[in-house]
């Protein structure tokens, strides 16, 4: 029984011949460590995300309320966030990976109309989007995200 639990190692001598030795504690621990590490090799995910932040102005005024969305050009994942009083910021866990992005921005303002929402059980303001299509559906805006935490962007838009 004891003999079976022995670990047998192959060692090479300087002439290229191999010989078997008995239990080798350092070799055994090294083997265990290697197999342990290799078990986790496939587990680390590839994509690293970085925080981004920035400023959006419309006609030189901070954009009060809106949404910014980044669509990857090539590889990457789509990310987005809220714009409040001209500022947006995505922490790393909601941020993009390195690469080029097409940027879509929509902005909202109240239309003066109201409608009843059954779920909220009250009258709510009907809001409208007022930016031209060149900033959203047919966007010409883009940005490039690089490594690190200093990804800051500014977009100066015109409502006309």
């Amino acid at each position: 029984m004891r003999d079976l639990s022995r670990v047998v190692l192959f060692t090479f001598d300087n002439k290229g011949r191999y010989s078997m030795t008995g239990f080798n504690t350092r070799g055994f621990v090294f083997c265990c460590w290697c197999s342990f590490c290799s078990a986790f090799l496939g587990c680390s995910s590839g994509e690293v995300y970085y925080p981004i932040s920035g400023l959006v102005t419309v006609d030189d005024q901070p954009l009060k309320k809106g949404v910014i969305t980044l669509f990857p050009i090539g590889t990457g994942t789509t990310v987005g966030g809220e714009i409040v009083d001209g500022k947006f910021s995505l922490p790393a866990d909601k941020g993009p990976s390195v690469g080029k992005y097409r940027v879509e921005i929509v902005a909202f303002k109240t239309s003066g109309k109201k409608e009843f929402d059954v779920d909220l059980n009250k009258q709510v303001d009907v809001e409208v989007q007022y930016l031209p299509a060149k900033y959203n559906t047919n966007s010409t805006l883009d940005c490039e995200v690089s490594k690190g935490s200093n990804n800051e962007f500014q977009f100066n838009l015109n409502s006309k």
Partner: protein
Amino acid sequence: MKSPRIGFTLVELLVVIAIIGILVGLLLPAVQAAREAARRMQCSNNLHQLGIAMHNYSDMAKRFPTGAIGRRPSDGAYVNDGRQPFTKRTPFIRHMLAVLEQGNRGAVYDDRINWHDQPAANHEVVFGFLSVWQCPSDTVQRMETNPQRDYKGNYGVNWGSGTQMVANPLQQGPYYWLYGARFSDIADGTSNTFAMLEMLQAPSPAGGAIDRRGRPWNEDSSCYQISTNLPPNSRAPDRGTCFDQSAIKLPCINGGSIAQYTLASRSRHTGGVMVLNCDASVHFISDSIDIQTYRNLSTQAGGEVAQIDQ
């Protein structure tokens, strides 16, 4: 003569336990994966059932069931002036009941009034659990913040590649306000156009906030209208009457213009979502699908050449 050994030494026991541990460690993920595969299969069966039901409906009505009856397609306003018979708010699921062998439930539903005006005595029957709308990978939820307490579901209709109010007709899907496509409308081909996509049942947030994503019984925007504006399982937030639940893969930005509301297709499956095509075939779409291909597959007459990779 040596006496025979009784029992094992400590080292031998430890080695055996370690080996068992390693084997279990290897086996457990495999078992979990097999269980998830079975759940995914069930999900795909549900979608196929819905596809067949849709085709049965189309045999009778010569078009797919109406996506949602409520807002006016031209400007998104509610026109409850009582003059038009079609302005009573009615969700897509109501038209599916008869063709899903839920005719008795459908008989209780009163079409002369809005869905939310159905008498309280009928709530449990009308808005009750419907297993074909439930993906077993997700958790069953009800709309706890409403008196109807309607059950949520996992399948939403394809609302095209735009947002809630589709500005460009080329972006339109087979379902819309007051619209369900005829086969002749689906010019891109029924096998290249989504009919329904998976969605997640958003739990009701604590504190009474409203999150109506994944709710087939309310026809209003951001309930079950899925657009391909955002990719499957998008890390970018949905926009709608919802509550940010990023921690459970349900990011959201609440409010804004209803015309800009957008729900992405989401699922609890690993790496993608299940979709139903207009020809009633079911496919798995990977999260990493090219966004343009994904959008092309959701438009019914966009004129693009797009196919699902097999």
